[in-house]
């Protein structure tokens, strides 16, 4: 029997209504970097959360150094030498490097904290990686890349054998990435096993030995990897495209109604221009962090722009806030419905009426009657399942919540509607209802902009696909003439040596 550092066998995990992992396997050797690949939602993070004790598996077994283990908590996984470095770093910014590394493991002298001791220990770890960081530096004073190094030091300080890195380079510049790769090489030499999750397939080739590919919660394959196998890896990640699941409708595509010119934002969107015609669904595709949400938020006025112009029906419109956008018939269904789309403590009626009080309010008084009529109409039209229009939104399912976010705009005359990940986290039936809804809007001659991470959906619904990567628009493709491989190709086209 091979001596694996880690072996996962037949891991299964189910969340309410979703089989997140279905008989997934993974092996990791000493001194190896294993890439874990898959599209958004493939199950990579879930699998790593199981390995690091954040989630518990439903079935299957985990073996560490040929010994079967079961973790109830991250602490137990840590005791077996498993450390995970999340995409969002877990550091206390107001504490020093040493204080962070030894958090909960502080050494004391006569009951007082012994700063000297932890500073010395930290210095040893920092030196072993040749890092130019002082143990007494405040974490908040370090760049993101250095903060990541602190996380790696933290892993080393608990003698971690297995280090999981989730998208470690997504916030780094090219130079910092090189630095990180240097550190990873050192860790390899020290015989550590590293699991590396990334979407940057080219970059991955420099660092990983093998890759394991997941798709829709299923194990696809494990293979040796170098850059020549890129196309093959993409094929495995994408699988076969299922087009007929989506009810595409043909409509008469009219004039250009919405023009975005040279939008640049402080949030990382760089010089993006595009046009949308009446009766057209334009999808914006890209990987996490590509700047899609940032783009649509800026266009809608939710975030400020540095430069750029927006035209609706050939009229230059100044959009400084969502109010301005709404006045011009441009609406947005935001990505995170609980955070940005709904007041979940308020009722269906209150949420639905909120942007439409200008229709329902008399000279002075709000009219419950008119609001209820408007809401009931929309509840029936969109088939929103709620026991009452006075039900609090938090008690509804994700799909029904999403229909409220969409519905509140449909009361008004729309010219352009932006949907940001409208089908995330909702069940299949509700997804299909949202597809039909977008098609109906398209048939009514509304310009629909649609951000999605689910490529089959994008290919099944849209008329055109804009592909973004690292804040830039990389391609403007006719949906019928493209495929997942091509979209993914543009979505991973990082500009070399670009300063962020």
């Amino acid at each position, binding site marked *: 029997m091979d001596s694996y550092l880690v072996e996962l066998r037949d891991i299964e995990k189910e969340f309410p209504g979703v089989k997140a992992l279905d008989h997934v396997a993974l092996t990791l050797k000493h001194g190896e970097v294993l890439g874990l690949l898959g599209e958004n939602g493939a199950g990579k993070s879930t699998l790593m959360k199981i390995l690091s004790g954040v989630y518990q598996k439903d079935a299957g077994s985990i073996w560490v150094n040929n010994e079967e283990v079961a973790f109830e908590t991250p602490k137990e996984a840590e005791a077996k030498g498993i450390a995970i470095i999340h995409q969002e770093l877990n550091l206390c910014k107001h504490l020093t490097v040493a204080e962070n590394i030894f958090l909960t493991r502080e050494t004391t002298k006569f009951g007082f904290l012994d700063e000297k001791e932890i500073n010395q220990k930290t210095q040893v770890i920092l030196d072993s990686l040749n890092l130019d960081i002082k143990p007494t530096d405040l974490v908040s004073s370090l760049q993101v890349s250095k903060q990541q190094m602190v996380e790696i030091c933290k892993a080393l300080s608990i003698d971690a054998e297995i280090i999981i890195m989730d998208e470690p380079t997504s916030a780094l510049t090219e130079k910092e990435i090189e630095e990180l790769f240097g550190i990873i090489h050192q860790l390899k030499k020290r015989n550590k096993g590293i699991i590396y999750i990334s979407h940057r397939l080219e970059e991955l080739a420099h660092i990983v030995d093998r890759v394991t590919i997941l798709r829709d919660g299923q194990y696809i394959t494990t293979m040796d990897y170098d850059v020549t196998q890129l196309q093959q890896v993409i094929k495995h990640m994408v699988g076969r495209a299922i087009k007929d699941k989506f009810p595409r409708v043909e409509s008469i595509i009219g004039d250009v109604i919405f023009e975005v010119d040279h939008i640049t934002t402080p949030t990382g969107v760089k010089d993006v221009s595009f046009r949308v015609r009446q009766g057209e669904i334009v999808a914006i595709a890209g990987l996490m962090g590509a700047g899609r949400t940032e783009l649509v938020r800026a266009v809608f006025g939710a975030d400020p722009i540095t430069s750029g112009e927006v035209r609706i029906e050939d009229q230059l419109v100044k959009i400084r806030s*969502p109010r301005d*956008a709404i006045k011009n018939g441009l609406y947005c269904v935001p990505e995170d419905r609980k*955070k940005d789309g709904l007041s979940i403590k308020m009722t269906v009626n*209150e949420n639905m009426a909120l*942007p439409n009080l200008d229709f329902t309010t008399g000279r002075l008084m709000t009219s419950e009657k008119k609001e209820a009529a408007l809401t009931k109409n929309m*509840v029936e039209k969109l088939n929103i399942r709620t026991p009452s229009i006075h039900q609090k939104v938090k008690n509804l399912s994700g799909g029904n919540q999403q229909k409220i976010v969409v519905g509140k705009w449909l009361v008004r005359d729309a010219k352009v509607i932006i949907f940001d990940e409208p089908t995330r986290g909702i069940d299949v039936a509700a997804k299909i209802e949202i597809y039909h809804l977008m098609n109906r809007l398209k048939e009514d001659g509304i310009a629909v902009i649609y951000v999605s991470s689910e490529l089959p959906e994008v290919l099944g619904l849209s008329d055109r696909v804009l592909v973004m990567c690292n804040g830039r628009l990389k391609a403007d493709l006719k949906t019928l003439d493209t495929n997942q491989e091509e979209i993914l190709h543009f979505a991973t086209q990082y500009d070399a040596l670009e300063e962020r």
Partner: protein
Amino acid sequence: MSELVGKIQSKSLFDSKTKQFFSTISGLFILIIIFSLNNENFLTTANLLNVAVQTTPILLIAMGQTYVLITGGIDLSIGSNIALAGVTAAIFMKAGIPIPIAMLLGLGVTAGVGVLNGVMIAYGKLPPFIVTLGTMTTVRGITLTMTQGIPISGLPEAFNNIGIAKTLGIPNPIFIMVIFAVIFGFILSKTRTGRYTYALGSNFEAARLSGVNAHMTLIKVYMFSGILAGVAGLVMAARIISAPPTAGMGYELDAVASSVIGGASTMGGEGAIFGTVVGAFIIGVLRNGLNLMGVSPFIQQIVIGVVIIAAVFFDKLRHSK
């Protein structure tokens, strides 16, 4: 579908808001019953009117505080605004300015403080606690400077009438209290401004993305709080024909207590004027009843403190069910 909707709507008598309504108001009645059994002087018209008059300033500022709490903020400057309104109006009255105009000037100044609070919170993105803590201290300092620390007394008799005189046997402050409670209750429950106030506290970002003019609404809410503190200050000055620069010290926390007992949440999104009215009266009745029973003011503070925590605790229990 609409049948189902209708059925459930008719059941809404028992929804959580209504339940809260009943639980707060029954708390008030229980207190009234206990005190009437304990002391025969409690349940007399004279005493009840007295309770109402004494509760008036607290209730006025508590209504403003309720608006602010619903947005998820807090206004600590209202105690100082009470003194500022009184002192400003008093100075103008002494200068011979007609009483109504002097009073409006007093209100204008406190409304201005409110607007300033709102601007710093909305546009400056500063925490409401810090902003209003700052204006609380600053405004108190300004009133002390304006008066050199000495109460301005010898105000016109007509002004005194506002605080003391009775109309149809009912003291004027009670009319003022009722009028403002109706106006601000109406704004909160029946106008767009009121709805936006709840929307901001419930989810600021969602409200903004729905096109709510978030900044303007916040400024309005803090202005309301400033105006109501001003009204309270004028009523208090009118009753004692004097405007002390130290008036209203610590009242801001009584306002928070009234709102919270009445069901407002310091986390925002919840609260109502009717609840605040009941909350303010619970505190007023407690003080009055304990006084009549001869309980020392020191012990009264202990009791009121316990009541605040108990009220919120029971509210939490009810919510977690």
